[in-house]
């Protein structure tokens, strides 16, 4: 039996700055995970991934990342995505410093 689809967001790195970006419901790339579109339907997610991947001039390495719905928008389910939305743990650099 196929595994049930779990909610996801589309994420990538920005072409110029290289930092983590997320795809919004209105086809924009945002630095804030809370603004990302949470995809709960598999067919819709696949379609959105194709659309996001077409934006080669803005984003690199586009993929779907598991999330859960939280009070302030999508929340990571895996520590890798948690680090991506925060920054490194040895210095206050990256998103934790900039946002």
């Amino acid at each position: 039996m196929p595994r049930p689809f779990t909610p996801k967001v589309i994420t990538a790195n920005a072409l110029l700055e290289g930092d983590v970006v997320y795809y919004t419901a209105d086809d924009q790339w945002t630095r804030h995970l809370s603004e990302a579109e949470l995809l709960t339907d598999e067919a819709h997610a696949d379609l959105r991934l194709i659309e996001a991947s077409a934006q080669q001039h803005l984003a690199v390495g586009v993929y779907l990342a598991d999330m859960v719905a939280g009070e302030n928008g999508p929340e990571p389910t895996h520590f890798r995505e948690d680090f991506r939305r925060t920054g490194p743990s040895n210095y206050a650099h990256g998103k934790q410093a900039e946002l």
Partner: protein
Amino acid sequence: MYSYNDFDAAFLAERNSQFRQQVARRIDGSLTEDEFKPLRLMNGLYLQLHAYMLRVAIPYGTLGSAQMRQLAHVADTWDKGYGHFTTRQNIQYNWPKLPDVPDILDSLAEVQLHAIQTSGNTIRNVTADHFAGAAADEVADPRPVAELLRQWSTDHPEFQFLPRKFKFAVTGSETDRAVIRAHDIGIQLVEKDGKRGYRVLVGGGLGRTPVIGKVIRDFLPEEDLLPYSEAIVSTYNVLGRRDNKYKARIKITVNENGLDTYRELTEKRFAELKPLFSGVDQEMLEGIRAHFAPPAFRNAPTDAYEAARAADPVFRAWADTNLSEHKAPGYAIVSISLKKHGETPGDATSAQMRAIADLAEQYGHDDIRISHEQNVILPHVHLSDLPALHAELKKHDLATANIGLVSDIIACPGMDYCALATARSIPVAQEIAKRFDELKLEHEIGPLKIKISGCINACGHHHVGHIGILGLDRAGVENYQITLGGDGSEEAAIGQRTGPGFAYDEITGAIETILKTYLGLRETEEETFLEAYRRVGPDPFKAALYPEKEKANAA
């Protein structure tokens, strides 16, 4: 040190100009990412978790003060004011922006540095013993050979698309400080019957399948180095597997075909290649050697050093751990620790880089080395200059007296930066260093090498750590496996796993358990951890780490 000739300078300028155009074409949309990625990797530019990362080669770990200052300038101008020195004698900038990279590369070219072949399936930065030219025990300085290999391998047309990446390391000493047995090709300068030559090892490597390199030629005549190296790599280029990334390194090729077959094929290819080398490479090597002439060592009294030792216990403690024997009388090799307790292993701020550059100029014959153990070396310092040098190092947080001790930990960037990582390494290293500093056990424990990797690829050399730590993702949680008894020296050995891994908040405690067990069972204070482990084996450590299992066995 080596200084570029017109050919080198023109080649680098041309490459940088090509890359500038490639970056422009990527930004204006003429190149897709699939087209651009191999081009940026050939120039050392990765895309990591939070940003791009630029890996700059420090050939055979040697820098002059002008180059170190330029590394600081790059850190300040285009990055966040620091750089990370790696286990392969590179420096990595963690925060460059794509449009700035061409300017960074031009800036590095001003001081004869580059990022060419620091990534991709090519011959990577050629590394060497960081004590080269200074070590009391070496046959000859290995750096001219490393430079010759660098020139030969850079843009070598046959070797730009190898089955997988390929790493050379060179040493001039029997004591292996360059981990040559964990490299695709390891080269040791040797002397036999009054003649210089090379012992050549092949097929070493860590990663998913750790293998200790094997001797393919015990004595290779000096003039055969390039044709023989070319024969080894050429054989691998044909024979190496391209169907499976995990079986593509030369260590697998040698193991699958057998060393004897590999040697036979290499010798056959060598017979074809040898006549094509007219001897010009040996003329070039002679020219390169002149660049590495030893500095004019001075003959001066060392009373100031003895007086400082007697008067200042902090200086004495630092001298006892951070100095190594120099070949010239009255001189010492100084290791500057980039492992201050609680700091990131291998990181240096731009201010520290400039301080090191100044000190190298003032006291160290303008010679700086980066070790694969992520420290900085001033290879030639007169003993009488050490008290002043130490005083300056203290001002810049560079006087930590811990070389070769518990807190002198190798750690890869791990999941704090690296896109391949499965767990973090840096905070684990920071916690262990802080714990043993608080326990005040560091000097009692004595010589110990802890090495941490944040994934199976083993950039942190965990397999050859006396204590190795491997960070993994176990069902969505960071988990750390421990190996014991590894050794990266001339007696190279792969560490053995103790058993199930430990959670992120348990790993420091587990290391403490291992080391307290060692203190309890060592026969004398002189018996090191590694010696004790070799004497008693893993069982006492396993019993201490997994008491529950021990109880179950006893029941």
